[in-house]
């Protein structure tokens, strides 16, 4: 780029990141603009030798001029004249509503891979003329047989065009019977003859023209007809790839040699340790000898522990530790290890039966513990559901409903009707309001009408429950406390409205069940007291909680 206007300022390098002002040509002096041209040699990306082609040059010149872009002449395509397009492309295409997903290959979409030629056609027509009409060979079947022959030939003699192998008819017939129906057998021989004749005409090459693939990479490199070479083959020929291979092999060899050397080094060290060990053992023995003599001389009585090695207990751990680390000098640890190899191990051995027995003991113990725990937890809980869990033991008496006879008109709910066997008849039970817990097991209601019935049972944590059913809950006087509460719940002391309602309708029951009967604080207290309490709960839909006010 040359500096303009004769000035010798250097042109700054064009930075792709640098924002440039954008002007129209009329925003700059025209002769100035002209003088600025020709600063760049434009890369076209076209092969250099073709850039000069006159049609391209004309077209490129046209791009910059007002003229219509000149077109580059090219041999045109034209609609085929003597060609019945609709007959050959007969199937109609239905555009699917969604985008097409398709993965079948061409081979899968074209049926039989052999397409008969004009020559085949002539043969087949003549052949069929000789046959009776009902044994005519159709074009499709003819192609199938030919395809089978071609395939077999390709498999049996892939180099037929070179070595001129002829596949005998027997081979062909065998593979034909494997590939196709037996009905084709009657044509096999005739078609084979035709196939063979055609093969011979084409120098025993496959009958369908095929692309030329590489045969000898060195030889056909320059053959323009050889195409679609495999890239893999090239790779193996490449020296760089081979270099990598050799390097890898060398590296592996080196590694293996290193390992061997290390092994030998370690073995030699082990032998040295052994020697040291022996020396130390001998030394210890001599020292002990002296100790013994000294003991005898000084007449010291005592055990002879210091005359033998006495580390059998810790032996194993130490042994492993030291061997693994290989840090500690051998002499000290070797002694126990020697001994350990022999006797103590023998003694320690357990029989399989012993181990099994011990394991079983542990398991049994555990089971017993679990059972105890469960019993404790379930203490006083009586499972009266229709199908109680199996390990219910020691209960069942008095758990059924009993009908109440005389006492059902009591002011207070007849809680202790069934309590002749009760352990904890509590006088304060009436103060206890039913908890929010609702008992809703699906009871059969057949015989529960009319006759009121009750049962008492213990729940978890020793809570006492009274279930009732068959209550003819008519004009029952509410309990004092409850009635009080409701009395003062009125907005005015005018006469209270009377509501007609069915106390046993499920909607009413459901509604009532939502009415809080206790202040939350009190209920928490109750829960925390852990005292086995008696509470009545609506055992079934027809069970009426005592605490609920009857309609006045």
């Amino acid at each position, binding site marked *: *780029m040359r500096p*303009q206007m004769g000035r010798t300022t250097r042109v*700054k390098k*064009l930075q792709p*990141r*640098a924002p*440039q002002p*954008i*002007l*129209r*040509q009329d*925003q*700059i002096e025209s002769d100035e603009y002209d003088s*600025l041209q020709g*600063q760049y040699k*434009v*890369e*076209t*990306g*076209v092969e250099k*030798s*073709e850039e000069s*082609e006159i*049609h*391209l040059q004309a077209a490129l010149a046209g*791009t*910059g001029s*007002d003229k219509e872009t000149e077109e*580059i002449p090219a*041999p045109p*395509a034209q609609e*085929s004249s003597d*060609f019945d397009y609709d007959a050959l*492309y007969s*199937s109609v*295409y239905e555009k699917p509503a969604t985008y097409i*997903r*398709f*993965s079948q*290959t*061409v081979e899968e*979409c*074209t*049926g039989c891979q052999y*397409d*008969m*030629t*004009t020559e085949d056609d002539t043969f087949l027509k003549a052949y069929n003329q000789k046959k009776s009409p009902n044994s005519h060979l159709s074009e499709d079947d003819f192609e199938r047989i030919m395809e089978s022959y071609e395939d077999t030939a390709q498999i049996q003699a892939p180099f037929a065009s070179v070595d001129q192998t002829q596949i005998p008819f027997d081979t062909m017939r065998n593979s034909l019977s494997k590939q196709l129906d037996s009905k084709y057998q009657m044509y096999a021989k005739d078609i084979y003859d035709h196939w063979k004749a055609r093969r011979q005409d084409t120098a025993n090459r496959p009958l369908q023209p095929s*692309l030329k693939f590489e045969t000898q990479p060195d*030889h056909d*490199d*320059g053959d*323009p*007809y*050889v195409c*679609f070479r*495999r*890239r*893999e083959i*090239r790779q193996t020929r490449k020296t760089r790839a081979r270099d990598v291979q050799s390097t890898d092999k060398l590296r592996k060899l080196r590694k293996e040699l290193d390992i061997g050397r290390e092994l030998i080094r370690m073995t030699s060290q082990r032998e040295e340790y052994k020697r040291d060990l022996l020396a130390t053992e001998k030394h210890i023995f001599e020292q002990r000898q002296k100790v013994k003599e000294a003991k005898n001389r000084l007449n010291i009585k005592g055990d002879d522990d210091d005359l033998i090695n006495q580390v059998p207990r810790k032996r194993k751990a130490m042994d492993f530790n030291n061997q693994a680390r290989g840090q500690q000098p051998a002499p000290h640890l070797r002694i126990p290890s020697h001994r350990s190899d022999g006797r103590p191990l023998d003694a320690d051995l357990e029989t399989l039966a012993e181990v099994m027995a011990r394991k079983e003991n542990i398991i049994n113990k555990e089971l017993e513990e679990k059972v105890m725990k469960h019993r404790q937890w379930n203490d006083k809980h009586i499972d009266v559901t229709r199908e109680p869990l199996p390990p219910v033991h020691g209960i069942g008496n008095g758990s059924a409903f009993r009908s109440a006879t005389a006492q059902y008109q009591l002011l207070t709910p007849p809680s202790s009707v069934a309590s002749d066997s009760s352990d904890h008849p509590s006088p304060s039970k009436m103060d206890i309001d039913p908890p929010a817990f609702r008992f809703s097991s699906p009871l059969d209601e057949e015989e529960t009408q009319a006759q009121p019935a009750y049962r008492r049972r213990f729940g978890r944590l020793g809570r006492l429950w009274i279930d009732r059913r068959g209550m003819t809950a008519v004009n029952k006087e509410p309990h004092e406390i409850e009635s009080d509460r409701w009395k003062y719940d009125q907005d005015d002391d005018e006469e209270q409205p009377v509501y007609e309602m069915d106390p046993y309708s499920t909607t009413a029951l459901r509604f009532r069940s939502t009415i809080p009967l206790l202040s939350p604080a009190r209920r928490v207290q109750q829960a925390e007291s852990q005292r086995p309490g008696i509470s009545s709960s609506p055992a079934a839909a027809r069970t009426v909680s005592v605490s609920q006010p009857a309609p006045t």
Partner: protein
Amino acid sequence: MTTGALNDSGTGSPAPKQKGRATVDTLSIGCIAMVEKDGRPRRAEILSIKETKSGRQFYCNFDNFNKRLDEWVPTARIDFDQDVEWPSVEKPKDGKKNAPPTSKKSTVAKKNVTKRAVPTTREASAAVSDGGTPHPWTDFVDSQKPTPGPDGEEKLTLALDLDATPGAEDDDPMDVDEVAAKAVAAKTDTQEEFSREEEIEKLRVGGSMTQNQAEISRIRNISKVQYGKYDLYPWYFSPYPEAFTEEDVMYICEFCLRYYGDIKSFTRHRHKCTLQHPPGNEIYRDDYVSFFEIDGRRQREWCRNLCLLSKMFLDHKTLYYDVDPFLFYVMTSRDEKGCHLVGYFSKEKESADGYNVACILTLPQFQRKGYGRLLIQFSYELSKIEGKLGSPEKPLSDLGLLSYRQYWTENLVEILLEYNEKDERCSIESLAQQLAMTTADVEHTLQALKMQVYHKGEHKLVLPTKLIERHKASKEKQKTNPKRLIDPTLIQWKPPVFTASTRTWGW
């Protein structure tokens, strides 16, 4: 000889080419003659000769014309009153590569070979006699070779061509087949060979889809293709099975892209083929076009067929390696017959160079209808979703360059006008981010449009009046005739993720 070499460096050639009058019989492959094209004589290189019932025909490549305009011309169009430049074939010189005068020449030779592989330089010709090393035009030889068919006699063999070439008599008579076999594999010019190896290596590791054209046959091998409703006239060589070069017309099924030389086979195939859309997942659909994503590894045959088809219209495409490392984004238009392939672009699963397009093509019957723009836009929309800046792989073809230039220009001008109205500044990087273009592409486009100027000590972008006017005009036009655009909200696509094993390009 190519123009490039002739116009500049070629004139400095120490060995001027032999010129002289030729006759129909002496005119040989490699000669440069004046041939009538579009009503005026043009320099043309003879690439092949064949005998037809109506007489001898010459396959000519015209100076400064794209190869797609190469054609077979009858003798009548060749001007025999003018001198013909012979392919210079000279005595071998020992140690020519070390000789000082040739050191400069070698670049010329290389250039020649890279472009058109014309044996007009001393090196090239010397190479011929240099211990039986192959000709630089062996590409051509190769393509001529597959003629041992029923009409094999119609075409002259290379041996005959050589005999007819003045000066060729000095050469050892060489086995044509052997030359062809060795072909490009052993180029005399070591530099050339090296660059070729580099190229193959690049193909291998980079998964490039383009290749130097010197490696591929220069002569169109398929004359006519029946595809869908259309007859296509291929532009370039494509490595379909060699048997098809003898067919007058090749039939291609428009859905599975299989190819047939025999009409009966093709009819039979059409009876059996059930495909009605590209065999992949639809990732975009509006009322005009659909896009399908196809994995080259999964749909190997279909993608190969697609590559073969597109190679007929893409000069710089290579089919040297397989399609595994690519994804193909195929644009189709719908009608009652199915989703018809309109165009596609391929994209590397992992591009080391940040390319978002490897090859891009609109089939000829759909060209000049704005489809290319949709393809380009779609490729950038995918880049936006990926959060990357993308660029098409180079080299671009002439048509590719024009399409991309147009797309880039439109979008850049649109954005820059907004900035201009708001009187705001804008950096190249922010332009690149907005369009998912690489900064290099933005820079080059701005420079090509003469928008990047250095003025009063500062880089500025200037919108030329012409571009503004054209932009306004196209805006006006869009009111009546709205341009088709890709609606990014209709794209249902997540950038595919490939595990190491699915990324291995081998089988």
